[in-house]
């Protein structure tokens, strides 16, 4: 009580000082937030333009000036067979490459974080180099190999290429997650008689699952948006980015903006859903994941 009374006069001068903040200080105080607002606006400007021009009623194939509001583009976008094929291909490639790359990458991440073994250095390099390679070089080298062995380029070669660049990103993402957890939880499970498989299923996997999920989301996003590597490995097959590239060379039809807007909206819903799930589980996961506590509850 006495201490609080003594502290009071010490605390008070601060608001007074803040009120008397000099002009220079005030400018400094507001400069960063204002700058941030401008920078965010800059980042979002092309997205706004994409959305707005999806409602434009263009005069010709060029969609560069505002002509008038229309919803017609949203009706016509689903009547383009070439776009439907491209979207289907993109979804197939993204789904398969996400599943395979997430599985293979998670195994590598487990090996790198849970075991000491000879050859870690080379393996780290093996994982890192594909990330450090410019996409155009990655695409060109794959094309060189497919040409050399006479392999026809189609949806299969695209998927092979997407799995390749996704593996490294999965390893990096999952490893970051595993590095942060307590190995002793696994040792405790083994001490309590769980075998390796049970330990993995009940302890390790629930712990790394958020990392695996984040890696899978990243892999899916990278695959569905990939243009450069796909261009080199696609042959006559089209994916969504290749369709955009094809039609944009002869002027940009409004359907490009419409499809871009729809994909943007879907991605936004997914990420907001992911955030909500993370927030909700954050409370219970602060200490241990639910599945570890489950046996206790059963008792």
């Amino acid at each position, binding site marked *: 009580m006495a201490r609080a009374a003594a502290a009071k006069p010490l605390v008070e001068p601060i608001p007074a000082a803040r009120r008397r903040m000099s002009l220079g200080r005030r400018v400094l105080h507001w400069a960063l937030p204002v700058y941030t607002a401008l920078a965010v606006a*800059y980042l*979002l400007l092309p997205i706004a333009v994409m959305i707005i021009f999806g409602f434009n009623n263009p005069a010709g194939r060029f969609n560069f000036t505002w002509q008038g509001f229309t919803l017609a583009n949203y009706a016509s976008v689903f009547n383009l067979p070439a776009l439907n094929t491209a979207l289907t291909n993109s979804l197939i490639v993204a789904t398969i490459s996400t599943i395979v790359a997430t599985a293979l990458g998670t*195994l590598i991440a487990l090996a790198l974080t849970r075991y000491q073994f000879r050859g870690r250095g080379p393996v780290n390099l093996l994982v890192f180099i*594909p990330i450090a390679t*410019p996409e155009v070089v990655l695409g060109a080298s794959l094309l060189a190999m497919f040409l050399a062995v006479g392999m026809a380029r189609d949806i299969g070669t695209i998927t092979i290429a997407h799995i390749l660049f996704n593996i490294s990103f999965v390893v990096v993402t999952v490893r970051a997650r595993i590095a942060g957890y307590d190995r002793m939880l696994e040792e405790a499970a083994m001490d309590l008689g769980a075998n390796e498989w049970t330990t993995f299923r009940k302890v390790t996997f629930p712990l790394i699952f958020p990392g695996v999920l984040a890696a899978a989301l990243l892999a899916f996003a990278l695959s569905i948006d990939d243009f450069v590597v796909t261009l080199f490995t696609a042959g006559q097959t089209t994916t969504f980015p290749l369709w955009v590239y094809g039609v944009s060379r002869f002027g940009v039809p409004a359907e490009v903006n419409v499809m871009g807007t729809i994909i943007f909206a879907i991605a936004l819903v997914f990420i907001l859903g992911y955030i909500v799930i993370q927030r909700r589980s954050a409370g219970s996961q602060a200490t241990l994941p639910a599945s570890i506590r489950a046996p206790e509850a059963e008792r």
Partner: protein
Amino acid sequence: MTAIGGARARPTLGRRLRSAAPYLLLLPGGLWLLVFFFVPMATMFSMSLQEGTLATGFQLTFNFEIYPEVIQRWSTQLVRSFQYAFMATVAAILIGYPLAYTIAFRGGRFKSILLLLVILPFFTSYLIRTISWKFILADQGFVLGTLKEIGILESGFHVLATGTAVISGITYNLLPFAVLPIYVSLEKIDKRLLEAAGDLYSSRISTFLRVTLPLSMPGLFAATLLVFIPGFGDFVNAEFLGARDTTMAGNVVQRLFLTNNDYPQAAAISFLMMGLILVGIVLYTRLVGTEELTR
């Protein structure tokens, strides 16, 4: 009882399995990386040493002279790729650092929202973002067109089809890759260090220069690589926002490989780019690097 019996029988097999475990875990993914990364690189190198045409077929003649030839012929594009990537890297860091700084130190409860806004451009396709800039910067588009009508700009002024447009495009597209690692390294800084500097009568500027900036070096290092490498290989921005005199090495690879079917030259430039990047990374890592990169 059964558990103990099982444990007693296991040791030799278990120990053997455990020592093999990391290799078993590595096997499928490692094979994929070897077969679809290193084999293609080797194939591309061998392709660069071949001679011939698509019609007559290509023969491996160990034509090492192709490398000096390619360097001489496409030096403009190679140098331009380096310049554009360098300028985009500098621009992305100048724009991105204050943004990352504000989010890390002043973000408060808006931190996650601001981070989400920074990665929001990734929710649209790379191509569509670039095409959007073509809309924005179009000669008679709503920005330049309006400014010209008011009379602020003369009617001949244009941004599209210039090097500036290409560099701006690369900067824009890669800006989040600069912001995120810098943000992460700033976020890790123990705030008490900054308070301590203040208590020791360090001015805000010298606190920034002597505490904050050095501690954010790992982030800056990652940011430069994450912007420079894709910028160096980029050809999408040059294709949509540039003109014939702004083509980059990536455009050359694309044209030679996919349009002209001149595989040996395309392979040689591509391999050269890979070599330049790797040498660049090694030198850069030696100079300012941190070990965090490959760990």
